[in-house]
Every structure is written in structure tokens, then in C-alpha cells.
């Protein structure tokens, strides 16, 4: 599904050039469950942003199902993100003034879907994550676990094939963290490619393919036969 070839991303900090990604080459197949681990500053978040086209490489090639993405215009990249990528963030990034339903509705609204169609989809999605009765709650009225579940539902509402999660359990207690992981793994089991960036060893070990990064390079890439 995804082919990264010699991807480089560097930032200029003062006189120094920091290589966030240093010639990263990576193949990802549809349905993969990948964890990316590494110390802070190892480039794992940059790699995730790169995969989601939020960031652009300075050099190298990124092919998605045979299509080169590094040459896309800003407008086309936005369309790609909408159609192919779901993002999960450590801090959920729900819009505080919108209700759970309103947050779920956002991607549908941005693409111009009719309100009627949107409402059915939102209702179904809320029921799927078990929050049907919380539709009109604001994020601050929901627990962390509930907020992250809303965020996952939002990421998946347009059924993208690729789900990118940046420390999805970082702000959660163990119990809600486990709930969230369960949902993510269920999605993966249904065929969605799941890529998780995490510090959490336990979470990282659950993935079938474990990538370790250091100083912008992939230093370890292990695929186990079956999930633990």
C-alpha cells in the first residue's frame, strides 16, 4: 500500500541542521498493524506526519498504491488526507465548543455532505462506540476515554484505509487506554492499516510489526507471526 523511499526531512535550528528523518525507506502493506517506538526526537512523530501528508519530505519518494504523493498540490494533499487517512492524537483534539455529535460531524461537514445524511452517519458512529446517549455532551463533559473514542469515531467516519495514532493512550488511565486499544485493534482486524506511535512498551509490543527509530533512522523492524 505504502512505499517510502529515502525520505529525508530536516529542520534548521540556528546554524545546525537537525535530521528528523534520515533516508527512511519503508514498505507498508494493507492491513498491517505497526508500532513505531523510539526516544523523544527520534523522528517517529515526523514519520507519522509524513505518512499522513501533514508534513512534506525534503527529498525522497512517497508512493501510496502506486501513486507518487510528494508532488501533490496543497489542495490535493488535503483531499488525500480526507479520503485516506484517519488521525488519532494524544490530546484528542476535539473542538471544545462542539458536542460529541458536532465533532463527529466535522469531517462530513467539511466535505459538504447533506445534513440528513450526516445525522444518520453520526448516529450510527456514536452507537458503534457506545456513546449514543452522549451525543449532545461537550468534550469537557466526557471522560478522557470517551473523548478518545469520539476522536477515533471521527477519524473513521469516512472509512479511510489508513489510521495513524500518535500516543493514543498517552493521556489516559490504564483502563480507558485498554478500551481505546481494543477499538483500534478491532478496526485493524477489519482490514484497516493501523500505525501507532508510542512510548508505551506494552502497547508497542502488541503490534505485529515493531519499528524502532533513533536519530531519524529505522534501527529495528521486526514482524512477529501473530499478535500477543
Amino acid at each position, binding site marked *: 500500500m505504502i512505499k517510502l523511499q529515502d525520505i529525508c526531512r530536516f529542520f534548521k535550528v540556528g546554524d545546525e541542521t537537525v535530521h528528523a528523518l534520515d533516508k527512511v525507506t519503508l514498505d507498508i502493506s494493507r492491513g498491517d498493524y505497526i508500532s513505531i517506538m523510539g526516544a523523544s526526537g527520534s523522528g517517529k512523530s*515526523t514519520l507519522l506526519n509524513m505518512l499522513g501528508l501533514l508534513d512534506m519530505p525534503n527529498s525522497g519518494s512517497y508512493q501510496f498504491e502506486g501513486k507518487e504523493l510528494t508532488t501533490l498540490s496543497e489542495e490535493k494533499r488535503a483531499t488525500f488526507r480526507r479520503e485516506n487517512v484517519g488521525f488519532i492524537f494524544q490530546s484528542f483534539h476535539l473542538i471544545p*465548543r462542539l458536542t460529541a455529535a458536532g465533532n463527529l460531524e466535522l469531517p462530513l*461537514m467539511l*466535505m459538504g455532505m447533506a445534513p440528513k445524511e450526516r445525522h444518520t452517519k453520526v448516529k450510527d458512529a456514536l452507537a458503534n462506540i457506545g456513546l449514543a446517549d452522549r451525543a449532545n455532551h461537550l468534550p469537557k463533559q466526557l471522560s478522557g476515554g470517551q473523548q478518545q473514542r469520539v476522536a477515533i469515531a471521527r477519524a473513521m467516519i469516512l472509512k479511510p484505509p489508513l489510521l495513524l495514532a500518535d500516543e493514543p493512550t498517552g493521556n489516559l488511565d490504564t483502563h480507558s487506554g485498554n478500551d481505546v486499544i481494543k477499538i483500534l485493534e478491532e478496526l485493524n482486524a477489519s482490514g484497516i492499516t493501523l500505525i501507532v506511535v508510542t512510548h508505551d512498551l506494552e502497547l508497542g509490543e502488541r503490534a505485529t510489526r515493531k519499528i524502532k527509530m533513533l536519530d531519524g533512522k529505522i534501527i529495528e523492524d521486526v514482524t512477529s507471526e501473530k499478535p500477543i
Partner: protein
Amino acid sequence: MRILDTLGFGKIALTANPTRTLLILLAMSIGVASVIILTSLGEGARKYVSAQFETLGSELLFILPGKRETTGGLPPLLGTSPKDLTIDDALSLKRSRAIAYVAPVILGAAPVSFASREREVVIFGSSSDLKAALDLPMAAGHFLPDDDPRNAASICVIGNKLKKELFDNKKAIGEWLRIGERRFRVIGELSSKGQSVGMDLSDTAIIPVASAEILFNKASLSRMIVKARGKESLDKAEADILRTIKQRHDGDEDITILRQDSLLQTFDGVLQTLTWALAGIAAISLIVAGILIMNVMLVSVSQRKSEIGLLKALGAPTSQVLTLFLSEALMLSIAGGIIGVFIGLAGAKMIAYFIPNFPVQTPLWAIAASLIVTIITGLIFGSIPASKAAKLNPVLALSDK
């Protein structure tokens, strides 16, 4: 994204911070209201002056001897001297159907005395038509009789101020005055309203035009005051006057015609400009409100960084983020504008209530213009923060916690 959704998104964003939104609305509406109130006052002043002119009669034409060039430069030193305007000229104009009254006027100054009191005043030599043309109200007695103006009768009509100076509160009608070397009997007295543009008749004595010819020893009129039969007859009256005088003066068009309606137009133009100037001054407050919008929007953009990053992650392109923030600014400015129009109209009504004599009139163009300026202000000052939002790097925006 649908327009309604864009507006809905903006509405939620604006109502999430009511204090800030209300403050901007206040600033914007004060700006619009001040434009409307000030232009209402300016327009009211214009209408007031027009109305004053109307009551004086805008059907008046003033005929002066000699051709006045308005192109500037030196007057013709060696040109032909204009022929005198005569009483016969005046009488000949009466034949025009467009003309209602023709008052020949000889102006001069002479000492007027009664008993031991004496005053130097302006003497009007004219005819009975002067009263009709200028609509002069009488306080007592009669005006000059409607007979042949070539008749040099020894009678006079005095203004109310002159009457007070010479007679105090005693009866003046029937008394004999001395004007210059001649004696005149007072037959009438003007009331205090006897006033016209550029002429104060309260401190004058009016005598028959033929008597004035003798008194000042001249056979030419200072001017003629003509009243047309209506506003629509003004042009015809002017043409008739020119033709008649040209005929009588051997083909020389040696008169100048001043029309009161052209004077009114000049005033009107000046006051219109004044109204525009007032609107312009008030519009400065709209710009100030625009800067306030920009300021608040800039703060809002930096507070909502992560939201902007999220929108981009969810697949909103730059143009969409721009539209979202721009429509917020526009909604603010338009809402402020509409509130301002209502405050302005209410303010104008209040002024009209407290100063009933002053006609306050809100011109429609002021309402339209201030709303348009409001929208432009919103667009211009909203576009800076909106483009700042649109250009945000999504990675940095999302990492901003």
C-alpha cells in the same frame, strides 16, 4: 462545505466567546450608528435650508443691468456700456405669460426724519408688485397702491425697525416723514417677517419707483425683481425676459439674470458636501472597529491553533480554513452593521424628538453605504487573520497544546 454549515460553524465559534463578540459588535455598531446619525443631521440641515428657500419663493428672478461675465478676468474696459433698465422695460415684461409680477427697484440711501429724529436708511423705490413678489406681510396700513408706477406719489411704506426708531410705539400711519428733500406720508408698515434673501426690509422705507427717480435724480433701475407664474415657468420667464430686453435694447443682451433656484442649488451642493464630509468623519470609527475585529481575530487564531491543525488533518484545504475565518469576521461586521443601523435610526428619532424644529432626515444612501463599508471593513480586516490561520503549518498547529 455548504454555506449554511460555514455560517453555523462561525456562529458557534462566535457565541462560544460572548463577551468578546459583544464588544466587537458594540464597536462596529457605534461606527455605523454615528455614520447614520451624522448624515441624518447633515441631510436634515440641507432639507431645512431648502425648505427655508421654498418659503421665500424659488420662483424669483433678479434682473441686473449689464452683462456679468462669470469667466473671470478683467471687466471689459472699452466695451459698450449697458443701456439703462427703465420702468418701461419693467412694464413691457408684464406682457409675458410666464411672469406673474415685475417689481422695478431703485435703491438708494437717504436720511429719513420725523420730528427731531433722523436715520440714514436704504430707500426702496418700487411698485405694488414688490409686495406680491416677495410676499411681504403688513403690520398695519397698506402697501403701495396698484396704479401706474410712473406716478410719483408722495407716499411710503416703512419697515418695522425704522418705525420703532422714528415713532417708538406711537401710531405711524398717516404721519408725514421727510426723506431727503421731500416729504412722504406713511401709508403702511411692514411686519417683522418682511425679509428676503440678501435684503433686510425692516430698516428701509419703500416709496413709489417714480418718486425714487426724482429723489435720487436718476432714470435707471437698480434691478428688477420678477416672480414667475410657477417653478415650471421659470425657464420660459427667463427666455421671455432676455428676448424682450434684447428687443428693447437694440439687440444687446445687456442684463444679468439671477435665479433664486440656482442660488438654492449652490447651497444645496454645499450642504450635500458637508453631509458627505460628516459621513466620512464617522466612517473613521468604522475603520477603528475594523482594526478591533482584526485584533480580536488574530488573538482568536492563535488561541485556536490546534483546531486549525485539526481541520487541516481532517482534510480541509487552505482555502476552506480561509473561508471559515473570513466568514466569522464578515458575520461579526454585518451583525454589527445591522445593529448599528437600528441604533442610528433610533438615535436620529431621538434627536428629532428633542429638537422638533430641526428636520432630521436619514438618507437611504447613508444606510446602504454604511452597510457596504461595514462589509468591506470586515473583508479587509478579516482577511489578515484568516490568511494567517490558513497558512498555519498543521504539524506545528497540532503540537501546540
